[in-house]
């Protein structure tokens, strides 16, 4: 099953590689990983999207907690949560498809942030599934380039991950 795990860790050189190394050394899946400092610059917040059986996910949580630099771990998928991913996608604009593409971006809540005669670059935020859907809708043969940040997640309401 797909899980989205959030963690707070020391914002120190090498901390990221401890997490990445843990996943590769123990053979855990890693779908995406996004990381950046928090409002407290000594802490980084990481969101990891992974998948595995309940037993594997339990081990992933325990092994992450075992890393000395990791301060807190929360499996967001265990409760109400929100997840968002940012995507920039560059598409080829065929004659007559201009309006259709603009409309598709509007409907998905995206913005066209760069245009040339034959190319649009669209910025879109949403859940991973929403981004996947958007790409399907516009047609993969038009896509020149995509870049995605991987999911960032946060708990709903009172579910707060903070030291």
């Amino acid at each position, binding site marked *: 099953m797909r899980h989205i795990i959030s963690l707070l860790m020391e914002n120190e050189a*090498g901390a990221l*590689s401890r997490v990445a190394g843990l996943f590769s050394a123990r053979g855990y899946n890693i779908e995406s990983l996004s990381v950046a400092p928090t409002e407290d610059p000594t802490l980084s917040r990481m969101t990891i999207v992974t998948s595995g059986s309940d*037993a594997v996910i339990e081990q992933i949580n*325990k092994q992450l*907690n075992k890393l*000395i*630099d990791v*301060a*807190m771990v929360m499996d967001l998928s265990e409760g109400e949560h929100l997840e968002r991913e940012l995507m920039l996608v560059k598409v080829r604009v065929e004659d007559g498809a201009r309006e259709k593409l603009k409309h598709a971006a509007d409907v998905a809540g995206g913005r066209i942030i760069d245009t040339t005669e034959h190319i649009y670059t669209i910025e879109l935020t949403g859940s991973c599934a929403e981004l996947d859907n958007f790409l399907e809708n516009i047609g993969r043969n038009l896509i020149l380039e995509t870049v995605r940040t991987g999911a960032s997640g946060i708990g709903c309401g009172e579910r707060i991950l903070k*030291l």
Partner: protein
Amino acid sequence: MELTGAEILIRCLQEEQVEHVFGYPGGAVLFIYDALFRQDKVKHVLVRHEQAAVHAADGYARSSDKVGVALVTSGPGLTNAVTGIATAYMDSTPMVIISGQVPTGAIGEDAFQEVDAVGITRPCVKHNFLVKNVKDIAPTIKKAFYLARSGRPGPVLVDIPKDVSNHKTTFTYPASVTIRSYHPAGNGDSAQIRHAVQMLLEAKRPMVYTGGGVVLSGASAQLIDLVRLLGAPCTNTLMGLGGFPASDKQFVGMLGMHGTYEANMAMQHCDVLLAIGARFDDRVIGNVEHFAQIPRKIIHIDIDPSSIAKRVKVDVPIVGELKPVLDELLSVLRGGKLTPNTTDMAAWWKQVNEWRATGGGMRYKNSSEIIKPQFVIETLHQVTGGDAFVASDVGQHQMWTAQYYKFDKPRRWINSGGLGTMGFGLPAAMGVQMVNPGATVACVTGEGSIQMNIQELSTCKQFRLPIKIVALNNGYLGMVRQWQEFFHGNRYSETYMNALPDFVKLAEAYGHVGMRIDKPADVEPALKEAFARKNDLVFMDFRTDPTENVFPMVPGGRGLSEIILAEEL
């Protein structure tokens, strides 16, 4: 007054009451060695290879309650140390390894003797640090010792660039340390402990299974009380030997791949299993699916939550330090009205004793013609009164020692259980002898393992370490040969040890005493003579039966009750 980084490092070691550092000098640690030279509180033991420095620090820590310390230079110094670090990590030895690094300005430039020490060691340390500022040396060393010895212990590496060791700052050693992202477990959950007691008292076939955690945490006294109160059989893992006295009638021997028949059968057939400081690894319970075929309730006490429910499902997990958890378990047991059901226990012991009547499945037929390796270990036990520190290498001799040297005390059995590192024995024995001067220290080894760190005979001479080396020389890499015999059609691919040195002459060349023993009748006299030489290292080259195999054996991937006993073959 300002001190250099190197001087600060040595002052930190003094503050941590470090008496011995095992190491090897080099370019990146020149300032540190200079600071060592200009003081006399911390003594340096010069090994002959960095791997040995780490194994020696490891043996030092395992046979005492101290943190072992090793010091190596950058590049090859560090890479040579990696096997030792990984060995310590697998067996949770508290250790601090200090490595030199190229100057900060040269890092990343492929400088001479540069290697990414923090990167290379990351998967085999509890934690590691690269110190980039001289001001960070003291707090980092404080953290390193705290991390190494607290919680589930382990090796911690501190990498210090050469320029940092020569920069100056004022020295203050932090009085205390807190790491906001690190909170090792303390007491166990009281409700879970009461639940466990209830389950144990209602059990018809209870079993206690303990590992290296009991030895590391010094919880033997509590374990003995607990096993007595429960009246249950107790088994130890390879790492746990000595945690419960082997001579006790409730002890059913070691379990696992080369464990006794009764330990493995009781493990398989119990209805409530109490696991303490052990981790259900593949050499211990064999095939997980086979193990799960017979339903049993499992109570698992461990300081490391990630050891719980890793390979088997656990009904009552208890995370905590073993001593306080066992103390609380004992007080609940003593305070309650329930006691184990005597009828059930009598029936259970009748069964266990029937299994036991097989002789544990580890009979061997002694000979008057050729030396049986098991006989050497039995005689070693007798000659040393069962009270020696025994360091071992890895292979058949390791298993025979685990089986036949009946350890009654913790911290006496020093072996590489997790990583299985050949070459561990002799340097580990050096560490044991350094921290236990005057104690009887034996190193049981084979002609294969001993050659992996044979150069340490020189260190033993320099530091007058009177270790007794018991080499079971069968001319083969015996454990591999055994697997080739059983599972690879007797094709002994590269396991015959050709062109062996004359170990007697070799020992003499290093300034020690060498003995060669060919006949069974000479085994006891040789051991007696060797151990009577209190001040000498004696290398005993026992020529043993090359066809002897370790029994019983649970073949890899099989279940515990699929055990092969000696007499079946």
